[in-house]
């Protein structure tokens, strides 16, 4: 990475390219900044600026913090994110450890299954889950009802693959010798796994957890498909339902702002933590590759 920026002999494309890149970045970020600014608009309009006020955030019955509908969406999103983060991280960590230990033929089908949710459009995953939860009358499908339980199952299924990718990347960097070394020094199999390998894996597990949180809180398709009634409306579902409504107020922009700030804060924290935890190692991946893995 570091060798690239310092090399001055590289052919220089015209300035035009630099202007193009900055224009792209502006085109990408400016609309979102505008939408956030409109949450402070003085009138109902979400498209014309008419002065500053905080009335859509708090103070009136229609403001974000004083309205039950917004509060319920926010609460439901956080509830889903908490469940998804815990389950997806636990399941993903164990799966990543298991897959790296597998030898021979069993590895390929497991890898294949893990890839399915990553390469399938969310809509198809959602339709499949919806149909199996409504048509199959056998255990454990009868346990999971549409609503919170089904939404958590769907979000975890969608997220686990990404957690596994992140943790396997870290396992690859750590190499296979550590556990064996711990065993040679007298640690039992469980101790070698928990005190040595899992401890070294912690940064990656944390990043995995934060990615699950971000995925869960931003998830729309699966969450909407597996919802039941108005108590299981999450923030993205609420945004989708009201984005074009004529009666919608800038409080919706305030709700969206909260969503964006939450996600970005969690991801930034994950990036920083990972950096700090792996700073002293050579070959540690930078934030761009961590993020690229998520794609």
């Amino acid at each position: 990475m570091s060798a690239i920026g310092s090399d001055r002999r590289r052919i220089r494309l015209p300035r035009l390219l630099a202007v193009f890149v900055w224009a792209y970045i502006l085109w990408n970020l400016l609309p979102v900044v505008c939408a956030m600014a409109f949450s402070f608009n003085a009138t109902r309009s979400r498209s014309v600026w008419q002065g500053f006020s905080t009335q859509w955030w708090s103070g009136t019955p229609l403001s974000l913090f004083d309205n039950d509908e917004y509060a319920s969406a926010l609460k439901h999103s956080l509830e889903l994110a908490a469940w998804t983060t815990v389950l997806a991280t636990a399941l993903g960590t164990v799966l990543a450890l298991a897959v790296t230990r597998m030898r021979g033929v069993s590895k390929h089908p497991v890898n294949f299954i893990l890839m399915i949710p990553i390469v399938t459009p969310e809509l198809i995953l959602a339709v499949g889950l919806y149909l199996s939860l409504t048509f199959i009358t056998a255990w454990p499908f009868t346990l999971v009802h549409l609503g919170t339980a089904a939404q958590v199952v769907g979000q975890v299924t969608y997220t686990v693959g990404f957690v596994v990718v992140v943790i396997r990347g870290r396992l690859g960097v750590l190499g296979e010798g550590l556990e064996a070394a711990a065993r040679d020094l007298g640690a039992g199999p469980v101790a070698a796994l928990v005190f040595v390998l899992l401890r070294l894996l912690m940064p990656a597990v944390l990043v995995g957890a934060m990615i699950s949180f971000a995925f869960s809180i931003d998830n729309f398709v699966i969450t909407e498909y597996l919802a039941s009634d108005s108590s299981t409306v999450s923030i993205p579902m609420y945004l989708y339902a009201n984005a074009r409504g004529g009666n919608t107020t800038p409080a919706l922009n305030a709700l969206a702002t909260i969503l964006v700030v939450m996600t970005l804060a969690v991801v930034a924290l994950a990036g920083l933590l990972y950096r700090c935890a792996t700073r002293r190692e050579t070959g540690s991946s930078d934030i761009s590759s961590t993020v690229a893995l998520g794609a």
Partner: protein
Amino acid sequence: MLGSPGIIWFVLWVLVPAYTIVAVSMGYVSDSMLPVPEWNPLYWNVETLTTVFREMRPGGTFSRVVTNTVIYVACAMALCVLVGYPVAYYIAKQAGRWKALLIVLLTIPFWTSYLMRMLAWIGLLATDGYVNRLLVGVGLLDNPYGWLEGHGFVVVIALAYGYLPYFILPLLASLDRIDDRLIDAAKDLGMNRLWTFLRVILPLSAMPLVTASTVVLLPMCGDYYTTTLMSGSPSTAMIGNQIQILAQGGPQQNVGASMALLLQITLILLLSFYLYASSKTNRTAAPV
């Protein structure tokens, strides 16, 4: 076994649902007009599937959504390449000391809720919004234009806008890995900038471009929310809209399941082509 909870989870919530789509698609409709899945492959009924397939071809009931999907996705992918490749290339190879900052700025939209990014444009493109004000103000338009009232090109631009961050970051990561010594060698051997680009950089970017395109192709094909939010008109509906309407309850769930199945089969074929192409490139490429 360490892996068993995860594997059981995936079997229950990935493989069984996939099989359910097939079973519903190959099932029957009961006397009370409700779809009944057929779990036994021996009794599968392919009639719905073949009917849906026929209706998806030109002239059929579903041909509109199929044509829309193919055209919108193809145009949006072309925009992704035209905009995303220069951006990724510049940041990977030319940005110098700005590189870290630019990567952070690219990462922000990647982690910004997709719906928020659409919501932002809904405000700007409204009839009294700032895009119309600007265009009327500089004299490009005489009257405000109804951007959000059922225009295919707005959906295409919105799709490109929405998916570009997911296109650029993986592309950037692989372009970053292109060995600079190859570019230097081309220069030392007397190639000018244009030739270096055409004969060295472009061939090395081919596979990363295909990978990044695949990353956005898959979700775009199942997208229904972008066109709903940016147009809302049935004339710009995509295949995702049709699946979403049909599969969620009602007597036509088997039709919805068949469409989902056909879409998934198409995507699997495209993905296999990609895997074949990438394994071939890996085999022929000289180790660097």
